[in-house]
């Protein structure tokens, strides 16, 4: 095979096969797109062309042999060798049918205004937080702020102070504006390293680092905040616990949070919220309540937009096929392969 032939041969193969070929040859091959992968494979094989060609041949034969028993094999996810892969829901019965673009685009619009009715999980979290610590792990945009606001309101009505922390100053500022509008500006204060605005207010907003420092000062007896009246500590975006640099601050804050104050941890979906709740239960006076769900309130659909402007659903199903990443819409699959072909390095691209 000449280099050109080999390149063409490679270009005809699906990316998955190229990745198998690259395994053990190319550092971090999984990061590369098809075009780059072929480039790298060719580069690499300048030392050992025969090896690459024979491996390619072997893979092609193996694939051929595998595809004989039945077409459906192509659609099932590859056998997973890792042991703790989550149980996958059964495949939908009609594998061949795929949603049309028209129905994918159906139903766009603005719902009529509805009276506000709290979701069951919001009510559950609110009634729990008056008794004990609560960890909330729900998808982005579900309405965690409502729980924070109502819990803060109730604590303040009880003459207790509330601290709300966020990981980012920008977010603190947004919440400061939002909470001032809701509760009145005299009720809300914000603390930064060198400034206090309305530092005596019953609802204080700060970054988690500032709270951690306050707790250290309180522990060593230099109290400059009324920790004895503290009723509620809200830690927003608690998934920052996993941040390599700053995660430790969340742990310190939780460890040193006064025991009479309730902790309310708001977090986006994470893999092990039960662990966090169990941890809190193990170190705090009352058993922590976990409120979690993974269903988005506004359903999500995924699409694929080709650079030429052509839009198609990304998956065969209308919604997201959870647990089945391989269920691509045939049109999206075709267009993406085409994209990879056309962005090949050999100058064959039309532009």
């Amino acid at each position, binding site marked *: 095979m000449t280099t050109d032939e080999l390149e063409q041969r490679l270009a005809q193969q699906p990316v998955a096969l190229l990745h198998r070929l690259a*395994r053990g040859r*190319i550092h971090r091959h999984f*990061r590369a797109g098809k075009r780059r992968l072929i480039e790298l494979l060719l580069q690499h094989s300048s030392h050992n062309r025969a090896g690459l060609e024979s491996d390619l041949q072997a893979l092609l034969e193996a694939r051929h042999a595998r595809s004989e028993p039945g077409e459906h094999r192509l659609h099932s996810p590859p056998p997973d060798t890792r042991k703790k892969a989550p149980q996958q829901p059964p495949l939908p019965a009609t594998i061949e049918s795929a949603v049309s673009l028209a129905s994918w685009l159906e139903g766009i619009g603005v719902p009529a205004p509805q009276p506000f009715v709290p979701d069951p999980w919001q009510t559950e979290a609110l009634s729990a937080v008056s008794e004990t610590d609560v960890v909330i792990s729900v998808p982005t945009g579900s309405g965690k702020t409502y729980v924070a606001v109502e819990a803060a309101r109730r604590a303040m009505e009880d003459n207790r102070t509330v601290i709300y922390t966020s990981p980012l100053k920008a977010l603190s500022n*947004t919440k400061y504006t939002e909470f001032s509008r809701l509760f009145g500006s005299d009720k809300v204060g914000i603390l930064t390293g*060198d400034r206090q605005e309305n530092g005596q207010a019953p609802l204080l907003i700060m970054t988690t680092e500032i709270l951690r420092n306050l707790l250290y000062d309180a522990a060593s007896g230099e109290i400059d905040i009324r920790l004895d009246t503290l009723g509620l500590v809200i830690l927003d975006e608690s998934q920052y616990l*996993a941040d390599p640099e700053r*995660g430790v601050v969340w742990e310190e804050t939780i460890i040193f949070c006064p025991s009479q104050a309730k902790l309310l941890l708001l977090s986006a979906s994470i893999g092990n919220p039960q662990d966090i709740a169990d941890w809190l239960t193990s170190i705090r006076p009352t058993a922590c309540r976990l409120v979690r769900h993974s269903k988005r309130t506004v359903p999500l659909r*995924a699409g694929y937009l080709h650079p030429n402007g052509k839009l198609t659903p*990304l998956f065969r199903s209308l919604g997201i096929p959870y647990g089945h990443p391989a269920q691509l819409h045939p049109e999206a699959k075709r267009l993406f392969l085409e994209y990879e072909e056309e962005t090949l390095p050999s100058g064959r691209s039309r532009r």
Partner: protein
Amino acid sequence: MPPSIHPVDLVTALRHKHLTPAIVFLTSRRACDEAMETFDHADLVLPPVRQAAIGAALERVIAQYPSIAEHPLIPIVQRIGVAAHHAGHLPSWKIAIEELMRQGHLDAVFATTTLAAGVDFPARTVVITQSSIRKSRDFTDLTIGEVQQIAGRAGRRGKDYVGFAVITPSPYIDLNVLTKGLTGQPEAIDSQFTISYPMVLNLLKAHPHEHIQGILAKSFAQFQLNQRAELLERKLDLVQTQLEPFGPRVCTDWITQWQTFDHVRKRRPARHQTHRSDSPEIAARLSFLTPGRVVGLSKGRGIVLRQYRSKGQKNSMLTMLRPDGAVTECPVTSVREVYDRTYDCAEIPTYPWCSAETFDRLSEQLEELPPRLPILPILASPPAEPLPDAVVQSLGDFPCPTCSSRPACQKDFPTASRLRQEQHRHTKSIQALRTSLWHRFQERVEVLQTFGYLTPTTQLTADGEWARLIRIDHSLLITELIRADAFTGADPSLLTGVMASLAHDDDRPGAFPRISPGLSSLLRQVRKLAESLSPHEDPPLLRADVAALAERWVAEPTLTWIGLCRLTTMAEGDIYRLLARTIEFLSQLQTLKATHPGLADAAAEALALIRRGVLEELP
């Protein structure tokens, strides 16, 4: 075919399908800015009513944040209803764009992925153009959690029936990462607990030394270590039941007897010497560096395929599988971290020391490892006593040849010995998992004692009392600088310059404004001290260009924000963040009023001077 869709075409397509408002996530700030430029002459102009509405909304935000009044993007925002939003912009600009978006005035915002975390910024549609993200210097694949944070911005509650995540390709995109991210379960959270010097000082200020272990035990880190220990304890139980048939025979502990015999039999004088050259730390590691173990090397990671001793080498050697499928040999000493992760490994006696399937699988697993792995804490035990000569000699008349249980022992020994070793390994690991935090704490204590922040009885010294108030990165360097009188008599601008170079941890290059001789010599001193402290604390980047920039801002109170921005090639958002971080550092120095009034005053003065213009708009 262009490698990715043209921004104008993208917005046209989204509008046409009623998929606006949309957030378009791009790889870099530059890509966002370039996208904006393409709208300069685009005929996507909004109807006058909407333009007027945007104008009115902008005016309201500008009233609050005057710094954005002259922003170069305003005409495009108003005419076309698109905007850019990334870390290179001022916070006030970002707030303005978020506000316009919330009020529904914009059709598209071009943003970098940093936006996805924690900003209240929903839209009907998110457009994803990449599958990796720049973290520190390298690109890494988006995690499932990150993909879902991004997709989570799509679909506004109460304003949309459905949300859309639209993928449009760009070169090097890996569709698998995104489809996995959309359909998968987010990753579990792993504790990132570290023990810092200020943490040690503050803990010892408030609690007696003997309570600390109990406090550390309350961390999520210990909770997770315990989970791992419990897992090992179950394994240990299993090993112990398996060991039951190998209980006492003619001698009570025949396994040890045989092990000693085996050990002596195998020992050759030359090997004996090389063995002794391993330090206790290395020796402790050896039993964990077995085939299948994942380790961190000075560059990247590897999986151990084989452990061996080679004649010319002082140290034990490892055969290592590296990420590109390469097989390399390296001394045990080059292993930086031993991770708490092992894979099954079918060993074979010839190169590459494991079966072909294992090799293939391991290469794959090595590449799919998450960016962070739990480190296996390993306790070093003092070097093993050499066997007393008496024992060695008596082994010559090893009693076994005449013992009645010898055939049984001989038959069982390989299994029993393997189990016994496993038992030891598990016991050691469990002990390490239970006590590793405490050991790390003790290590910090020792350093603080050496430097004189703690007394030998772990009380805070006079220096410790104030040093515990410095609770930021590079705290040891900062307190050592203070003790070395480096800042005595330093004026506010000089102090600001040094703090800026300590606070800035970004390696994005900037231009180099003139640096004053005073600052330059002070930075030299800082650098020297940082280097001498490097065994105890990672040295900061100490960039002179950012130091000079911050110094100028404080030294020249008449310098305007625009003037400052012209001095450098840094984006204004980066300058803002630099000064905001510097404010945090200075405000810590300000807390040292009682012990270092001069320094605290200089810091207070510096803070008053920094806080002007844009830096006063937000608390």
